[in-house]
Structures are given as C-alpha cells and as structure tokens.
C-alpha cells in the first residue's frame, strides 16, 4: 500500500474500529486535540495508541533525549536513537503510523512559564510526567484553561490512573497538599517494567477516548490501581 495510504478514506483506515466506535465518533476523534506531556514509558505508548485510534491533532512535549536506560520500557526508544529528542521521535512515529494526524512537537520541559500556552487549545491533556511536582503545576494550568487531565503514574509493576476535571481537587487527593517541593515517588527505587508502562498507557488512552466521546465510565475522583505481581486491579473512591 505504502504512501497512498495517507489519502485513504476514513472508512478504510478505521475499518476495525467499527462498530466499537461509530463513524460519528470516529469523526469526533478526528477533530479532537490532545496534548501529551512526557514522552517516556507512558507517553510513548500513549502517542502510539492515540495515533492509531485516530485522534486528529496531537501536541507532543518532552525536553529529554533518549538514553540507554530507556530501552527497557519506552516504546519510542531505539538503539539508533540514543541522544535523539523524544519529542521529535514521537512526531516521526505518529506520522509514520498515521500521516493524517496533525502533529506539533516541542523539545522543552514545561513549567509555569509555558504550560498554559502549550495546553490552552486542547480538549484533553495526557499527564505522562515523571515528576509529582510538575503534575501539580500542570493541574493549575489545566484548571485555568478548563481542560481535563488524564493522569497515569507507574512504579515497578504497579500503576495508577485517574481523570481530573477543572473543578476537581485532583492530585491533592493522591499526593497530599502541595508542598514547596514534592518528594519523588518510589519509582526512583523500583524502576519501571515495560509491560506495566504499556498497560497503564493503555488505560490512559481509554480514558482519553471516553472523555472525548462522553461515553462509558470515567475515573473522575476515582483512582484505578493495579499491581501486577498480585493481579490486583481496584478502583478506589478518592472522595
């Protein structure tokens, strides 16, 4: 098929999305704008899934470049890409999968100075960050911009997912009141295993679609917790 695929009709490309998704829903996804912040273990897989499912506009942000220690879990990392910017690799991957996706990418870290600007036009922000401190900053900006956040976090073979709407308390319910500097999570000691990262990224992608399509059960004020050694899968009430 090759290059001609880019001009495919929506019915062809997304044939196997039907009728889990309706054509109407597929078109909604095609006009949706999603920002993915953090393109490591979670964000790389999130990009892959959102591109394949047919999100029309993706903004991909990470200031980092690949290093050897990413290869154990980060979908976008390859040996030949060591030293290469993650955001640029993400753009290349998304467009290799689905050239119809409009991609913007930024090789930069986010803080109070640029967060609002980067997310303000989005329908959903995907929090794939590895810093609890930056998650709080993201929530503040997303509240200002009235944008929901789908948040994932991992450590070892454990993970958690929640969806935060602008009026919600959000991270405070999970990490406690924001201190001046949030400590790192236990992932600094456990590392992260590939299948857990992919699994949590899949849950995040599913939440993203449900928010965009206003369909299904959304993890609002709830925390889905998974631990894969014990096959624990629970949804906890945060309020």
């Amino acid at each position, binding site marked *: 098929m090759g290059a001609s695929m880019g001009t495919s009709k929506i019915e062809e490309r997304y044939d196997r999305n039907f009728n889990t998704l309706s054509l109407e829903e597929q078109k909604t996804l095609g006009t949706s704008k999603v920002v993915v912040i953090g393109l490591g273990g979670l964000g790389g897989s999130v990009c892959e899934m959102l591109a394949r499912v047919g999100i029309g506009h993706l903004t991909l942000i990470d200031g980092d470049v690949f290093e050897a220690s990413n290869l154990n879990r980060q979908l976008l990392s390859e040996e030949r890409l060591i030293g290469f910017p993650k955001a640029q690799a993400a753009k290349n991957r998304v467009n290799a999968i689905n050239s119809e996706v409009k991609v913007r990418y930024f090789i930069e870290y986010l803080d109070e100075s640029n967060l609002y600007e980067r997310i303000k036009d989005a329908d959903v922000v995907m929090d794939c960050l590895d810093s609890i401190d930056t998650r709080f900053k993201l929530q503040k900006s997303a509240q200002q911009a009235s944008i929901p956040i789908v948040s994932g*976090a991992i450590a070892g073979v454990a993970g958690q997912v929640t969806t935060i709407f602008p009026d919600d308390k959000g991270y405070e319910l999970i*990490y406690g009141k924001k201190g001046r500097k949030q400590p790192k*999570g236990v992932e600094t000691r456990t590392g992260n295993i590939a299948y857990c990262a992919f699994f949590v990224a899949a849950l995040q992608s599913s939440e993203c679609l449900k928010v965009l399509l206003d369909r299904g059960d959304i993890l609002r004020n709830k925390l889905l917790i998974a631990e894969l050694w014990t096959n624990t899968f*629970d949804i*906890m009430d945060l309020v």
Partner: protein
Amino acid sequence: MIKIELKLFVTLSRYLPDNSGSLEIPEGTTVEKLIFDVGIPKELVKLIFINGKKQNRSYQLKNNDRVGLFPPVGGG
C-alpha cells in the same frame, strides 16, 4: 480483637505481616497505630484505602475492613 484484611503495595509489601488476609488487631486500632505496629515507617505511606474508599490515618478500624496502603507513585 477484630480481624482485618491488609494489603501493602509496591515498596510497602516487604512489611506485610503473616496472616495479612485475616489479621487480628485490638478493637479501636487506628490506621496510624496499625502502620506503627506493622513496622512501616510512617512517611512511606501516602494513600490509605478502607473498603475501596480513601480514608485518613485517624480512621478507627472495624471488623472485616479491607485495608490498602500505598506509597507515592509518580513515575512516567
């Protein structure tokens, strides 16, 4: 005495006592006291869930409560 089910996640799992599926504790025990008695450094516990709902450390445990304790998880 009452019986509870205790689950400890991620880095806390090393503190899991024997019989954690049906752990005997004195009536009136708070989560704070449970954390102390099991020997978990209190700063390691970030989230407390009782019967699937978030609670705080002063919660008094009841017979057949299902208790889950989590450390902070923030990796991406």
